[in-house]
């Protein structure tokens, strides 16, 4: 029998508070590197200028301690918890929300959430967080924060394909979604794709796919890695380019995740993330 590990929720609160500020002020180094690679590959002069400004913006935001995008997003938290962890000191969900509220205040970040899609009253402190819990063996805790802007989330899509439509149908759906998004998703985008599972699982997988670190690293599954490379090429062939002004680099990374699915099903979810890609992870 393994022993229970007690973790004070105040520790989680402090971590969330810190990550909210870091994620919004400092573009992660591997994503800066991905943008630099995009800049080097871009053929359009305007496109290269867009990349240069994005890279300069990342330097200025880190130096000035201000958000690199004004849409400081929805705080999406993936929390993977060992089943031998026992949280003490109060409600875990409330601690996460306190961490978000404190981080958004500390970092001069925008409160961008409304309490209901119907009456649309701002909650004032960017809570609640959107938390996805996973329970695993052991006593570790992994926390990943994804700050999700709405411009690109709005351009995301989910479709229940048929097995007959297959991988070719999936690729057409991805390119169609990118074309429809055009400049509105703020390319160069990172594309998270969730395939399989059920309707709900595909969407969460797509969101989780965005958090892969480093940006643009291939899937460990060779079949998926090949598919990712094909999709990068197909998306860049659209010509949409940086900021949608035309160019050869529309995406800097496609991350595909897959899960067992039903014999009758081929769910595909596509979650887009703009060039302001904000992800931070810690182990507790």
């Amino acid at each position, binding site marked *: 029998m393994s022993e229970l590990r007690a973790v004070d929720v105040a520790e989680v609160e402090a971590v969330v508070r810190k990550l909210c500020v870091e994620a919004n002020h400092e573009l992660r180094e591997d994503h800066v590197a991905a943008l630099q690679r995009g800049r080097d590959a871009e*053929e*359009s002069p*305007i496109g290269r*200028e*867009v990349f240069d*400004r*994005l890279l*300069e*913006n990342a330097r*200025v*935001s880190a130096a*000035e*301690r*201000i*958000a*690199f*995008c*004004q*849409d*400081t997003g929805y705080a999406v938290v993936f929390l993977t918890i060992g089943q031998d962890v026992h949280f003490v000191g109060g409600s875990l969900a409330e601690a996460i929300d306190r961490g978000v509220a404190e981080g958004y205040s500390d970092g*001069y*970040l*925008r*409160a*961008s959430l409304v309490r209901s899609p119907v009456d*649309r009253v*701002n909650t*004032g402190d960017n809570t609640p967080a959107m938390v996805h819990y996973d329970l695993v063996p052991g006593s570790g805790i992994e926390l990943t924060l994804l700050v999700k802007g709405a*411009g690109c989330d*709005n351009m995301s899509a989910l479709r229940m394909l048929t097995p007959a439509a297959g991988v070719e149908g999936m690729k057409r759906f991805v390119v169609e979604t990118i074309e429809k998004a*055009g*400049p*509105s998703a*703020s390319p160069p985008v990172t594309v998270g794709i969730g395939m399989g599972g059920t309707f709900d699982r595909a969407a969460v997988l797509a969101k989780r796919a965005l958090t892969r670190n480093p940006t643009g690293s291939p899937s460990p599954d060779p079949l998926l890695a090949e598919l990712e490379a094909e999709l990068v090429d*197909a998306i860049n*062939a*659209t*010509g*949409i*380019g940086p*900021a*949608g*002004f*035309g*160019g*050869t680099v529309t995406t800097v990374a496609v991350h595909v995740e897959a899960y067992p699915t039903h014999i009758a099903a081929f769910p595909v979810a596509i979650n887009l993330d*703009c*060039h*302001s890609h904000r992800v931070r992870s810690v182990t507790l």
Partner: protein
Amino acid sequence: MNLTLPLDDPSSLHAGDSVTLNGTVYTARDAAHARFLEAIDAGEDLPFDVAGATIYFVGPTPARPGHVIGSAGPTTASRCDAYSPALVERGLAAMIGKGRRNAEVKSSMLEHGCVYFGAIEGTAALLSQCITAAEIVAYEDLGAEAVRKLTIENFPALVVNDLHGADLYDDGPARYRRSG
């Protein structure tokens, strides 16, 4: 090309022109636009004179102490497509945002002489440095979505929709599209 708002000769601009803008702009997003339309329907005055004005689609982050404004990049303009023609008909001269406008907005812009500029979202920290003054002029209860009067200097943008019917979001990608 360095331009002062309101534009002297908007018909000289062409889609794809890289410009820097100077002068006064008003911020407004979805919620403020909904109130503009309510005001128009009720026969009330808008919070600023829309004739000759420029609207910037933005909801900035809070300003750090000592700063004029927080990060302030463009948001998706198409969410205001349902509202924009009513303002363009009343003389709105220019809009700054990101993303395509629908056919109705574009035809109203051509008819009434309104130019749409694209700024780069994701350069919000840089763009905040081009804003030298900011004051809330209406709807303070909307927080980030309140209407602000901004003074901008050397604010970089591209002409997306000119007065000749060209659209950079069509023409730019067409040049780089590869057929599969």
